[in-house]
């Protein structure tokens, strides 16, 4: 979307131009207000204003025309150099060329990081070794610890590609940085890095430290959710570390439970069941989602689902309908029939969808509801769900 070169220079130039230009403007206000229209010196100030504005205009225009002229060529040269380096690194990996002498230039590092992102397995490990040998990680870590936000964000993105475990302390420190943008970028980079840590002991240790940093930074739900999904193989360790903490805020529990459901982490089924009656409705809803996705509902937890179907919070009832499908068949049909008459349109819709997902018995119940449910809105919704189901079946058949 953006060209990442020349923009910092442009911003610096504009800062200078605007500052210089502000001087006559402020001076003008001072003189005019102080003197109320007596024009001594006014001509000179206005002349100064004209001169600075004209000079600023010339400088900015010259920069832009030069930028327009060279940027396409420079972008093409960068792409060419990057491509050449990618080919060279591939030859190095294949043993057809010796490793180049350091230190590496920007294109060489960029190509190395690109390959590290694209390649998996033993060759990825080899690329990590090359990054270490040339001290790439150290340079990036140094930039992360710097002060200029644009450079810090760029370095964090590069570290996200590098996935070098030794950078974790720097990344974890950046997760608790005062700047939220740095926190988010560092959390993403740390999650990607953690995903590559293979030793179980180290992974658990790092996951605990990561969870502590995340909680300390109080990152929002969406970021935690993304971090957990980016952690891939390390997600269970991170979920465990989050759920084990006593000080963990509700959005973290919610995100952990969502990850349990989405990643199918069966060992955490009990953790989800245990939170079906959590005082926070968002956590209750997440627990219901996880239970429904895992298809795990021990007998002792059924009462919590029954209670959730009558929860006063609309979105809890919505998610309870999906979990209700795990109740014994007759009970599930009866519960979902009742929810078809819920005052909320969204709960009615969720109940109809849940019934449609219960196979023949559910579809029969929907058909019965479309004809004979005492609630008019329930009848309409059941009919709608049946129509949607038919359309989907037809569309799938046509696609086949």
């Amino acid at each position, binding site marked *: 979307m953006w060209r990442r070169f020349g923009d910092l220079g442009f911003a610096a130039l504009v800062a200078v131009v*605007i500052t210089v230009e502000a001087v006559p403007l402020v001076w003008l206000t001072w003189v*005019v207000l102080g003197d109320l*229209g007596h024009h001594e010196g006014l001509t000179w100030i206005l002349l100064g204003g004209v001169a600075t504005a004209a000079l600023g205009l010339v400088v900015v225009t010259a920069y832009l025309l030069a930028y327009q002229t060279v940027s396409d060529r420079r972008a093409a040269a960068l792409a060419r150099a990057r491509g050449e380096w990618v080919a060279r690194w591939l030859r190095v990996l294949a043993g057809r060329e010796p490793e180049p002498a350091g230190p590496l230039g920007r294109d060489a590092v960029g190509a190395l990081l690109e390959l590290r992102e694209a390649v998996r397995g033993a060759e990825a490990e080899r690329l990590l070794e090359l990054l270490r040998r040339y001290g790439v990680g150290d340079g990036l870590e140094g930039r992360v610890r710097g002060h200029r936000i644009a450079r810090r964000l760029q370095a964090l993105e590069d570290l996200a590609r590098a996935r070098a475990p030794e950078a974790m302390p720097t990344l974890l420190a950046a997760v608790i940085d005062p700047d939220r943008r740095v926190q988010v970028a560092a959390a993403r980079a740390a999650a990607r890095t953690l995903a590559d840590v293979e030793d179980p002991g180290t992974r658990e240790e790092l996951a605990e430290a990561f969870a502590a940093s995340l909680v300390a930074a109080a990152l929002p739900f969406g970021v935690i959710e993304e971090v957990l999904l980016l952690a891939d193989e390390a997600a269970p360790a991170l979920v465990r570390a989050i759920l084990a903490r006593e000080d963990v805020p509700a959005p973290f529990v919610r995100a952990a439970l969502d990850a349990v459901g989405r990643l199918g982490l069966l060992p955490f089924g009990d953790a989800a069941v245990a939170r079906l009656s959590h005082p926070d409705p968002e956590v209750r809803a997440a627990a219901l989602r996880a239970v429904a996705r895992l298809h795990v509902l021990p007998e002792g937890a059924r009462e919590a689902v029954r209670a959730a179907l009558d929860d006063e919070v609309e979105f809890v009832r919505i998610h309870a309908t999906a979990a209700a499908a795990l109740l014994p068949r007759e009970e599930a049909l009866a519960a979902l029939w009742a929810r078809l008459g819920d005052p909320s349109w969204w709960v009615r819709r969720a109940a109809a969808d849940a019934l449609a997902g219960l196979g023949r018995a559910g579809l029969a119940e929907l058909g019965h509801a479309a004809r004979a449910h005492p609630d008019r809105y329930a009848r309409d919704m059941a009919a709608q769900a049946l129509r949607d189901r038919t359309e989907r079946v037809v569309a799938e058949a046509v696609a086949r």
Partner: protein
Amino acid sequence: MRALELVQVGLLTYFVVLNLIYSGLSFIGLRTVVVHARELSDLALRDLLEREVYRPVSILVPAFNEERTIVAAVRSFLALQYPRFEVIVVSDGSTDGTLERLIEAFALVEDPRVWSARLPTRPVRRVLRSLRHPELVVVDKENGGKSDALNAAINLARYPLIAPVDADSVLDAQAILRASRVFVEDETVLAVGGTVRPLNGATFRSGRPVSMRVPSGWLERFQIVEYARAFFLGRTGWTRLGTVLIISGAFGLFRRDAVVRVGGFWTGTVGEDMELVLRLHREYRRAGLPYRIVVAPDPICWTEVPSDLRTLLRQRSRWHRGLWQNLWRHRGMLLDPRYGRIGMLGLPYFWLFEALAPVVEVVGLVTFGISLALGVVDPGIFALFLAMAVLHGMLLSQIAVGVEAMLLERYPRISDRLRLLAAAFLEFLGFHQLLALDRFVATLRVLRGRGGWGAMRRAGIPTATS
């Protein structure tokens, strides 16, 4: 004579303060763009898609007599790079062939669906769905205006995020993806506005401009400069200050629950986009709930800008009347500390430097004219002041257009950049003043309680295949 002098001093001070604000905003906006370019990397977008952390989006397209643009627009929406979305087109009592074009192009059939009518609207005649695109829904309803059409679309929307867009717009293929990322990173975000760029002169394929030329008409060129200034610098700068008061009706992404909570779009204004944002601010501030409303520089929406003066003046008059209606409706927020920066900074700025600007400008021109005629003002000083104002305006325009040069999809030719520079200069030699006069008249019309939407003339969206 003394009174004339005092008026001149007032005008001069107004000009200087306004330009200092513009300069400050320009720098803040530019810096925000530079940081944003690194904050939202391709890697982050790819992770968002691969890990399925995105929030599904309902794209709402109100259409009234848009037969020329509607099919191309809907095609561009259906081609978006986003894994889960639906497009809801509302034909708001169109009297031309809008609906027929849609039925023909997308094989629409009637769909007797039920929906949650949380927001009251004019009656819906029928709902249609596409046999070719399951994610497309078309609503045929009685005419009730743009806000009413949007409310009908919200009632049918299934997803947690809604994106009201104009039927004459093309969304960049990644626009929704880029805007939705903001919601993932901050749950308190209620709305994200994008950047609107004029599509005149560009040719599109699947939501991407395949060729970009500065259009041949000067009116369109002036508008390219205006839009760059307003979006790349102005609104991005206001975002950094936490005082976004407008999300363009051409494209924005909102949390559906927040919009429903405040009662949807208000049908009593021609500036429904700003009104909704102001109401969100008011209701969330009153309730003491944490929230953010932001404008991001790179979810880009392309829109057709008027190429003839009559349509342009009508559009700007409508915008200005909408501005007045909204400021007046929410006047209780002005300088009320309970509304924080919105009440103490954003709204005073909009009253003084947006709504009243054409009045000050027209009064200023008349006053300086009289003063020159009466010999109260030195012609040399007047000329210098004028030169400074024009050069300063050009400088800010050039900075804004410069941000456009940093985009990968920019006007590629040097000649185009020179044309834009010329537009930035010529804009101040009549065009700017004409618009000021138009908005001045709009202000008078608001005082007399008149005004409606007025018809828009469209040329259509140029696609690479057409």
